[in-house]
């Protein structure tokens, strides 16, 4: 990447306090308990790039997304978008201006649209909130344009969300996200609630829109095939940490981290190539009491002594970064 990145996350961390109430702790002599949802996550996203975070449930993908857009304050580290810190108090004014340029698309198109609002009001809301158009006719024209852009009919604006199918609702969410002319979209599992043929429509639409408006995407998904289709670079998360970041091609051609390999092996073999696969063992441990050292070591076929003691740092190898003692020691 030559130009300065648009989005930079540095040592982003989020700890949730999941302790029982004070009185219970006193009576039951319980300790405070903390869930480290995200720990020291760093990445950079270049302009017009799609960067994906992939991982299983509980790996912290969505928490990262929320911290990046400013919905959840981090407990450590920083996010900056176009050199404006999303969380420092010094940049308040700058940040207000930044808001328009960031939008989010959520997983569940049923829950992310207000059922009592007509679609045209849903889409017009950001336009009015950011003062992008004041005159009623102008707003209406813009809403029609956006609806057409996502493959709906401008006349659909009069309907309510319940009159649309899941795929159409996700199109409405995209139209709403685009209404403020954003540069950066955070997409949290945008297609996992949809059927595959509808998913294909939405993914194609998102790629077309990216080309047309030079959008930058942070794409969050648990589906490796979807991520491969959309992203230029991928970060693989496990129990709150990034274990490997690599350009998509490289990650799929030669995955390095044992967890990445396991994840790739676990995907059903639709091409029926009969490729050799290793059986996956074990399950994700409880994040409240993660194993010491590398969190993956109890499931890792390559684990050796240092893995149980020391958390492996992300080490760069060319464009790829891997956090694994075994890789560093050349055990792969």
């Amino acid at each position, binding site marked *: 990447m030559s130009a300065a990145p648009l989005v930079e996350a540095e040592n982003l961390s989020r700890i949730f306090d999941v302790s029982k109430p004070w009185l219970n702790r006193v009576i039951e002599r319980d300790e405070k308990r903390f869930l480290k949802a995200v720990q020291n996550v760093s990445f950079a996203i270049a302009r017009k790039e799609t960067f994906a975070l992939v991982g299983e449930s509980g790996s912290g993908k969505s928490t990262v997304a929320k911290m990046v857009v400013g919905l959840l304050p981090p407990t450590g580290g920083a996010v900056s978008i176009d050199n404006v810190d999303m969380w420092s108090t010094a940049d308040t004014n700058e940040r207000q201006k930044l808001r328009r340029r960031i939008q989010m698309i959520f997983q569940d198109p049923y829950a992310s649209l207000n059922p009592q609002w007509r679609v045209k009001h849903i889409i017009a809301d950001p336009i009015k909130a950011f003062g992008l158009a004041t005159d009623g006719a102008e707003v209406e024209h813009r809403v029609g344009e956006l609806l057409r852009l996502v493959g709906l009919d401008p006349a659909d604006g009069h309907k309510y969300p319940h009159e649309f199918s899941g795929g159409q609702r996700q199109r409405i969410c995209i139209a709403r996200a685009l209404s403020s002319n954003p540069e950066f979209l955070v997409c949290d599992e945008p297609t996992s609630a949809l*059927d595959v043929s509808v998913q294909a429509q939405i993914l194609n639409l998102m790629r077309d829109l990216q080309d047309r408006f030079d959008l930058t995407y942070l794409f969050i998904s648990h589906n*490796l095939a979807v991520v491969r289709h959309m992203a230029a670079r991928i970060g693989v998360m496990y129990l709150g940490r990034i274990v490997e970041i690599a350009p998509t091609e490289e990650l799929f051609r030669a995955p390095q981290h044992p967890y990445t390999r396991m994840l790739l092996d676990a995907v059903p073999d639709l091409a*029926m190539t009969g490729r050799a696969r290793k059986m996956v063992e074990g399950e*994700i441990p409880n994040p409240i009491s993660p194993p010491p050292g590398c969190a993956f070591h109890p499931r890792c076929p390559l684990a050796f002594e240092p893995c149980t003691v020391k958390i492996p740092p992300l080490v760069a190898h060319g464009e790829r970064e891997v956090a694994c003692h075994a890789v560093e020691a050349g055990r792969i």
Partner: protein
Amino acid sequence: MIRQPVLSVRNLRVEFPTRRGTLVAVDDISFDIAPGEVLGVVGESGAGKSLTGAAIIGLLEPPGPISRGIVELKVRRIDNLPPSQMRPIRGKRIGMVFQDPLTSLNPLYRVGEQLIETIRTHLELSEREARARAIALLKEVGIQGAERRIDGYPHEFSGGMRQRVVLALALCAEPELIIADEPTTALDVSIQAQIIQLLKKLCRERDTAVLLITHDMGVIAETADRVAVMYAGRIAEIGPVRDVVKDPHHPYTKGLMGSIPALEGAANRLVQIPGSMPRLTAIPPGCAFNPRCPHVFDRCRVERPELFPIERSHAACWLLVDDTAKATA
């Protein structure tokens, strides 16, 4: 096939009588499953997959949906049995695995109690024998420390472990057929792989037939021997899984396969099927897929295609038999 099929379904039809007329959710479906065979049923939401499964084990009760047609389990009709005779078949001869392992286990009872109750309902065993069998089953589905965990409650198990318990429940009376409705949809991909392997292994060992209902073509490709692709309540294509996945004949199956992002090869633009599946209130005449089909011609809009044999599969498409259409397609 020389062996008698375990399950034989003929012209199954599920209807919902409503004030605005009868809605047909499953329309004239026929298939057989041989012993030890895994038949996958794949389709998108609303294609009628789950209703097919529910109709087979007689879980559709009036005044709700009505099912017609013939369902035979080992040559004996089971669709017209009274509830008292159907009850011993469910659970004993046909096991069920549902999507959400948390709702298919009772949260108030220990896992062991649920297993032992099911075992003793179907098999004449003493409490102690049933417990021993339950522990053996839990071991077989890969639950470590089964002797201890049998006294745990469902919430003490993770999602994957719960689905293993459900699998043990389905297998506890050595059924001839297992109906698995989206058994891995609620699970993470690494756990999904484990459960699929387990289901396959257990059924192969026991020669149990499986009806595997899922929306995930990947799971089908991994697990099934044959696959039926459903669209708007009808079977669009049925055949050996390799043929259907690699070389589909029905335009819908082709579109469906093309719309799945691949792990290998170039990340090209995905194939897009325009529009969406019709609602039950508005299934078009003729072939249900005709408004979305790129090769549609006059006959498709009028006449409903039956399943025509093509190579080793069957597909319901006029293109396969109409020579003039073939030339232009």
